[in-house]
């Protein structure tokens, strides 16, 4: 599997980035290793997607970042400060962890106040107007949360995230359980916040979501980092093409001597190659001209590659 190697964060470099995870590990029990030696760095201004199937360890990693879960090994840093539960730097963070959580018998407004006052914030300092406008709940904000629909609760949760005008948003599956219209709204919102300079780390198991919103991404599986890089690197210009041909040996030889083609690999069913500055149709023309019969041409995204690779049940070593 291909992966773009970045310089691994260390304790020394952790100071400059919004988020740094250094060899972060969480073992819940003898056979449950939720996060395994995860190192990751999110620079200020990035919109970073943490992609992985359910159970990949995304949520556990985010919870360790927020001080909710104690790492077994390794460290997590926010703005250069090593995390412990309730650390003051959390003031600069807005987070959504595994769906909304509200006191059912309090109104939406009282829930926001309760959240804000925990940690001693004065209500006047809260970004209440903007948060409420965003939630768009109207007079329902004074109704008990118990009466809210799932979408309303989620919107209230996003309003809660924005209360402190966060410099960093940590969003765990922000669009889960929403209808398509609401999903679009949430994605627009995240983009808008990013344009205003906020750093975003979001986890998702939806490929398209990460493609649409994120500038950078990392892929996790079985608690480990599988690949990381810019979304463009992972899916954009360097596309992977998959070919089924009648003469594999000849095709490989021809492809390897073509400029703009790299990483020619023979797979069980065909050949995969990466295109840089050459069009797919030119490859096809070239091969056909040289007498190679082509049965299938399919484009594959690297991200998809990586993602599909993960979803296949790999043995957990």
């Amino acid at each position: 599997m291909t992966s773009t190697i970045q310089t691994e964060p260390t304790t020394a470099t952790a100071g400059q980035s919004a988020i740094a995870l250094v060899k972060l590990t969480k073992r819940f029990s003898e056979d449950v290793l939720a996060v395994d030696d995860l190192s990751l760095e999110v620079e200020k201004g990035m919109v970073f997607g943490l992609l992985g199937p359910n159970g990949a360890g995304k949520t556990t990693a985010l919870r360790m970042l927020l001080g909710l879960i104690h790492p077994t090994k390794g460290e997590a840093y926010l703005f250069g400060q090593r995390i412990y539960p309730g650390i003051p730097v959390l003031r600069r963070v807005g987070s959504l962890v595994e769906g909304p959580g509200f006191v059912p018998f309090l109104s939406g407004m009282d829930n926001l106040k309760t959240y804000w006052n925990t940690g001693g914030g004065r209500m006047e300092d809260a970004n209440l107007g903007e948060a409420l406008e965003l939630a768009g709940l109207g007079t329902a904000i004074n109704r008990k949360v118990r009466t809210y629909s799932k979408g309303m609760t989620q919107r209230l949760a996003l309003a809660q995230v924005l209360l402190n005008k966060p410099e960093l948003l940590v969003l765990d599956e922000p669009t889960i359980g929403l209808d398509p219209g609401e999903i679009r709204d949430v994605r627009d919102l995240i983009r808008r916040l990013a344009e205003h300079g906020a750093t975003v780390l979001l986890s998702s198991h939806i490929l398209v979501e990460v493609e649409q919103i994120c500038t950078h991404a990392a892929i996790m599986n079985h608690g480990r980092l599988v690949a990381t890089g810019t979304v463009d690197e992972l899916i954009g210009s360097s596309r992977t093409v998959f070919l089924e041909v009648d003469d594999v040996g000849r095709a490989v030889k021809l492809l390897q001597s073509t400029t703009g083609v790299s990483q020619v690999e023979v797979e069980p069913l065909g050949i995969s190659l990466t295109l840089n500055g050459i069009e797919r149709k030119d490859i096809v023309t070239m091969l056909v001209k040289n007498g190679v019969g082509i049965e299938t041409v399919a484009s594959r995204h690297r991200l998809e590659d990586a993602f599909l690779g993960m979803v296949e049940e790999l043995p957990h070593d």
Partner: protein
Amino acid sequence: MIRVELRKQTFRMRTYIALGLMVGIPILITLAVEFGRRPRDNKDLFALASHSGINVPLAALTAASSFLLVVVVALFAGGSVAEESGWGTLRYLLVRPISRSRLLASKLVVVCLLSLAATVLISLSGLIAGTIFFGWHPVLTPDGTVFSQGAALGRLAIATVYVAWCMSGVVALSFMISTITDTSMGAVAGAVGLTIISTILDAISSLGSVRGWLITHYWHAWEGMFANPSTTSDMVNGLLLQLPYVVAFLAFAWWWFHRRDILS
């Protein structure tokens, strides 16, 4: 932080019902004594309740403190952390810039305030209802001693605080379980279970001096203040006995909550 928690826990249906019950029980006792058949030879606190308005809160305290009050304070303490887990709000409280100790402490303070309020309401409601029905007379106690209104009122106040303090062990246990489980009912069941077991063991006289260490053993020691000669040494024992329970349960609660991974 305490204000936020107090607001959240006080103005809710469950608290209204619990505190309403505390007000209602003494009224119920008053009505039962007023309209029931007056026994002549019975000399317990209930039978004497009609002698004076101040007799009623004494009867109510005796009646409520062995079970109902336990359930109520266990409900307050047991829900405090576990309910937040259940609502999914615990993780959002803990991603705020606030230490887990402070969160626990403010929750504990609110639990204690509500528990104290519950106990005081029993006495207050009994005093008011009793005085309305039976008048403002000197108090007659089971052994025939008579206390003036002033002396009785002072002793009632001390008895109320004493009963409230006796609940501290139960509160601490419930609170501890609340930091472990995600269901507040588990915490309530734990506290009520402990009380029942302790009461049963306390009834087995062959256990001898071991019974002096049972959490419920001195719960009714305040009644000694209304005897002749009045005794308070058991009350001192009762006050001290709660301490090891409170310290042990709370220490575990703190230790556990600090090392806990918040997965709810």
